[in-house]
């Protein structure tokens, strides 16, 4: 076991502040590496020390591995916390940390390699007995019929050499298989000079459900699941734990599969296994594993009472988990809204600028993770998330009510945020009923934008 005393934080925004919070609680010092644009950010003021890694552009600062390593060594840090995004799943950084004698607060380079590449990750899922979207190759109609019978309609025909939608056909019934197959093969041949096709089960109604893993390399635990189906262009907007209206058998299947996957690759750290839940077929498929702390981790913290950053640090120090699956119980329901500096009514145009007023009063059951303060600058170089509102209540309805209250009360002036979108989602009976799929938000948006000037 190697105790950590001073953590170099290679990130920015609310997650830098979040890591500093736990470090202070643990009595650890922090050094925040910032870009020149974030020199006066809240995290830079809160950290024991802040150093400027490089200019505003991420590639010269937050993504500059050399600068991160030199800065961590030069400021006497013994560990590096990469946050999420940026270098968080970068194997080169993890290796460079090891070479420099720094503890990387995350999984091993081998773990990162096992989940980093889609094909490798799928191979591991197959070997671990974790379900993938069923499918198979076919070069003749007879072969295609055999695969289709096995996986069931609707199916998607994809070019093996493919990409960009070329040679991709959806087939809803057996009668259409022959004609669609010929067309897909002809298109594939024309586009890629290769007519081989792959048939895959098509998910008409899908939910994004992910499982939080905590592993010290020996004990592999799950901390329940999160539903992140409210998305816009693959960007999560609202996340909750537990996933509403999931059958107990399906839920248990997800949790077991996630643990099996993490155990199979010898995973050691915090991580998240993402699944696509096929609602009409009541089944689920492995998507990928994220080898980092997630943006939406607070909903898991709310229902488990754990400090996931503290767990992540303890695992990185080499401490064995003191937890067991049996004493990890979930209480109530938690929902998170991501407040972004963007204008919902102008096609989600980013709205950088200076915050004149930031007021997030404490309400019962509300947690706010933010780096916003009056005078804070939202630079145009990075993502637009400015705050996370997390509500925890005995029931889902109470968590929704708390968030609605928070959105009414909290003030963030000087910039435009997506708060109206969150209000619309929380007030929508379909969302309130629970269990929406990933196409939900795209369907809600026209109603919202039509109702406004």
């Amino acid at each position, binding site marked *: 076991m190697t105790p950590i005393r001073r953590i170099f934080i290679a990130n920015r925004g609310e997650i830098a502040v979040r890591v500093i919070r736990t470090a202070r609680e643990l009595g650890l010092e922090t050094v925040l590496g910032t870009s*020149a644009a974030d*020199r006066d950010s809240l995290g830079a003021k809160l950290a024991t020390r802040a*150093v400027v*890694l490089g*200019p505003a552009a991420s590639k010269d600062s937050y993504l500059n591995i*050399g*600068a991160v390593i030199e*800065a961590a*060594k030069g400021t006497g840090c013994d560990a590096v916390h990469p946050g999420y995004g940026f270098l968080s799943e970068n194997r080169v950084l993890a290796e460079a940390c090891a070479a420099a004698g720094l503890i990387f607060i995350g999984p091993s380079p081998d773990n990162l390699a096992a989940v980093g590449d889609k094909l490798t990750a799928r191979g591991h899922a197959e070997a671990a007995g974790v379900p993938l979207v069923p499918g198979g190759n076919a070069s003749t109609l007879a072969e295609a019929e055999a695969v289709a019978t096995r996986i069931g309609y609707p199916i998607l025909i994809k070019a093996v050499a493919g990409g960009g939608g070329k040679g991709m056909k959806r087939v809803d019934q057996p009668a259409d298989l022959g004609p669609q197959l010929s067309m897909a093969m002809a298109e594939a041949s024309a586009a890629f000079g290769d007519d081989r096709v792959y048939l895959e089960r098509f998910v008409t109604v899908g939910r994004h459900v992910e499982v939080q893993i905590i592993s010290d390399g020996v004990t592999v635990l799950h901390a329940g699941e999160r539903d992140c189906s409210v998305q816009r262009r693959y960007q999560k907007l609202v996340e909750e734990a537990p996933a509403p209206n999931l059958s107990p058998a399906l839920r248990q299947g997800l949790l077991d599969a996630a643990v099996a996957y993490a155990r199979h690759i010898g995973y050691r750290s915090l991580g998240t296994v993402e699944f696509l839940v096929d609602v009409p077929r009541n089944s689920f498929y492995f998507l990928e594993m994220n080898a980092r702390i997630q943006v939406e981790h607070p909903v898991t913290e709310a229902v488990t009472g754990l400090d996931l950053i503290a767990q992540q640090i303890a695992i990185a120090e080499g401490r064995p988990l003191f937890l067991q699956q049996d004493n990890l119980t979930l209480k109530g329901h938690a929902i998170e809204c991501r407040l972004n500096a963007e204008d919902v009514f102008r096609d989600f145009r980013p709205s950088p600028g200076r915050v004149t007023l930031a007021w997030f009063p404490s309400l019962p059951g509300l947690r706010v993770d933010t780096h916003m303060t009056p005078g804070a600058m939202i630079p145009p170089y990075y993502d637009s998330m400015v705050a996370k509102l997390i509500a925890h209540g005995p029931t889902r309805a109470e968590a929704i009510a708390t968030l609605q209250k928070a959105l009414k009360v909290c003030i963030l002036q000087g910039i435009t945020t997506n708060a109206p979108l969150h209000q619309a989602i929380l007030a929508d009976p379909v969302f309130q009923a629970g269990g929406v799929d990933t196409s939900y938000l795209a369907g809600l948006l026209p109603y919202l934008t039509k109702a406004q000037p």
Partner: protein
Amino acid sequence: MITRSDIDDILKLIDGSDFLELKLEMGDLKLEVRRPGAASVALPSTSVSAASAVPVARPAPVAVAAPVVASGGGSEVPAPLLGIFWHAPRPGADPFVKPGDRVTADTVIGIIEVMKLMNSVPAGVAGVVVAYAAPNGEMVEHGQTLIRIQPE
């Protein structure tokens, strides 16, 4: 946005005048410049970057793109990147420059080492070397003052 040449112009104006101190406000930019000898001239020795070496009133930090700025005793040459700053091409060798040396904008004044990669740093301004501001062999941040040069 104020540019480096604007700042150079402002500094030339002050150099040619009898004023000890200048305070400038333009929109949300506030710039204060003092001459050596003026009251409270001392710059914070822990100045973390070139831009913050120009005392800028809050809450309006202005990103001045790696400027060469004047302060007590010459223009400050900022580190173009974070790394270990070396005064000499190799340990034990003479430093690239010493006080009193005349340099051009292209004269190499030091090396910044990042992960075993050596990056030479030009003065960026013509003049006479006043002194190294960052110690040899220690980490410098992006924008930290490396050396002071009296422009000519």
